[in-house]
């Protein structure tokens, strides 16, 4: 869409929205009940605009070759496209290209970081680091060293740390969640000790919608020299985010939640830290010198990108961030996306507040949230809610949303989550409400 909005921080108006929605063909399909699709599961994965699909196809039909591996013209073109994607995706989150590592998804990004600790630890214990590679003490864990997460984490930012502890003898600690469904940030200072080596937390919770007080986490971690790892999966697609400015050391997000293709994720890290980390996946294209006995590795980001990469998907993600930026003049599209999704969130929260049989989890005010709302219908199982919404054509997510410990803490086996993308419209909220009323009538 090419409409030039006038107010950078206003929601999209009806005309803008119609133009934008036309870029997403899937939004005009109907569902098995004959009703038009109302897609409200962008927190799981977003839909993709035609610009993204076209960019991928153009790559395949004009430039496809293995990147970083050939001297022929196609290989050069493919490599240029891949590296241009790195620069654009970096710029989208305020980072230089050489601090951007392409992975298959945010989960791989977070595992990569967790393994940097166990691999460094093994190198240090065995003296087995590649020749000339200093083992950085920040990544070496001693028995009883601590990894701090929160009780609200997505499994992707929890299980890799549990497994790191199982490999090394480190101990997992966590910031709890209060009865109100908020992070118990006051407990943070007591939990960060001299033994804390990693502080890993979500920028925005994929269940609560709450945006974390990043500065507070960073300050606590800095005090003891712990590495900070930000799970930015639910912030980067929905807010304007400048990762380096946040003060964290490393951050992960996925392309498929930010209008990009499936199969591509990002790890951002401060250059100095990426250099200090050992590789994770090893193989072709990430080496400096290979002998049968042992090998040495290329500088970051190549060091972390073993094998033929997801080039077409990186190119698709490039088109996605270009698309998002272009939603407002001066490349400030994310400001409008944020404003738009926040307006929808406020509308939904307002409507839900009128229903005494609905319990919303997380912050009461839209201003404290990214564009998603999870809730419980009293006396109705979330999967039945989801099914009735599905029957209205409304696609939402039900379950524990890969945050099982949080749901246990909230005393809810499952919640229903509505999550917005830039293409959602006020009438989508009406559709949700219709479905909720039906579920309430049928079951409660």
């Amino acid at each position, binding site marked *: 869409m090419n409409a030039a909005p006038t107010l950078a921080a206003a929601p999209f108006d009806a005309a803008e929205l119609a133009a934008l929605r036309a870029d997403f063909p899937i939004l005009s399909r109907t569902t098995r009940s004959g009703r038009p699709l109302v897609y409200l599961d962008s927190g799981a994965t977003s839909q993709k605009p035609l610009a993204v699909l076209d960019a991928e196809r153009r790559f395949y039909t004009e430039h496809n070759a293995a990147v970083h591996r050939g001297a022929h013209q196609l290989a050069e073109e493919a490599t240029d496209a891949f590296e241009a994607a790195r620069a654009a995706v970096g710029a989208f989150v305020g980072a230089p290209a050489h601090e951007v590592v392409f992975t298959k998804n945010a989960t791989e990004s977070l595992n990569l970081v967790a393994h940097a600790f166990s691999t460094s630890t093994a190198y240090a214990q065995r003296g087995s680091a590649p020749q000339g590679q200093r083992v950085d003490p920040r990544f070496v864990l001693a028995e009883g060293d601590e990894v701090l997460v929160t009780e609200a984490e997505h499994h992707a930012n929890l299980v890799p740390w549990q497994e790191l502890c199982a490999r090394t003898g480190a101990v997992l600690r966590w910031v709890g969640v209060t009865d109100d469904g908020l992070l118990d940030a006051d407990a943070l200072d007591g939990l960060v000790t001299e033994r804390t080596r990693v502080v890993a937390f979500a920028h925005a919770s994929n269940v609560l919608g709450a945006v974390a007080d990043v500065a507070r986490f960073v300050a606590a971690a800095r005090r003891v020299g712990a590495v900070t790892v930000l799970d930015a999966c639910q912030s980067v697609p929905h807010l304007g985010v400048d990762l380096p400015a946040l003060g964290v050391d490393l951050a992960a997000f996925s392309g498929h939640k930010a209008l990009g293709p499936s199969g591509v994720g990002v790890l951002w890290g401060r250059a100095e830290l990426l250099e200090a980390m050992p590789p994770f996946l090893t193989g072709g294209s990430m080496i400096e010198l290979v002998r049968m006995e042992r090998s040495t590795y290329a500088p970051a980001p190549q060091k972390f990108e073993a094998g033929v990469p997801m080039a077409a998907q990186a190119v698709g993600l490039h088109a996605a961030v270009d698309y998002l930026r272009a939603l407002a003049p001066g490349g400030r599209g994310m400001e409008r996306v944020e404003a738009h999704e926040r307006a929808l969130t406020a509308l939904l929260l307002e409507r839900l507040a009128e229903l005494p049989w609905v319990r919303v989890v997380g912050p009461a005010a839209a201003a404290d949230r990214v564009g998603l709302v999870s809730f419980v219908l009293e006396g109705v*199982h979330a*999967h*039945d809610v989801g*099914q*009735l919404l599905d*029957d209205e054509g409304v696609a939402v997510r039900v379950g524990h949303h890969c945050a*099982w410990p949080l749901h246990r803490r909230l005393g809810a*086996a499952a919640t229903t989550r509505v999550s917005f993308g830039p293409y959602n419209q006020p009438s989508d909220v009406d559709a949700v409400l219709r479905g909720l009323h039906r579920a309430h009538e049928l*079951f409660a």
Partner: protein
Amino acid sequence: MDLYQQLIIEHSKRPHGSGLREPFGAQVHHVNPTCGDEVTLRVDVADDGTVRDVSYDAEGCSISRASASVLHDLVVGRPLEQVQRTREAMHGMLTSRGEDAGDEDVLGDGVALAGVSRYPARVKCALLSWSALADAVLRVRPC
């Protein structure tokens, strides 16, 4: 929508035979991995192979609760051979992707669950108590 038949809603609201009772020959605990819902189920089988009681505690959606309630109706008082046939009929119907509407003579109110087979994500809900039953029977009568 063919999923939430009135019968299902009724069974789910007032499930038959719910609650854990004594005596029992075996107790099992099954979890539906896709949602984390669970059922604890007990069977009590007489020496002649008649199911004297099935008692259960089911945490889950309306489909899973209704299915447990229907199970209780179809199984209590029946010989194990028949229970086995019923279970197979139920399994066949639920996994038929809409092809098998179920035989009311065999499945009673259970035919109201036929619509579930069109919703792959929900098939496990309806199967939960039935797999628990199979497991429990195996413990009472290993074969």
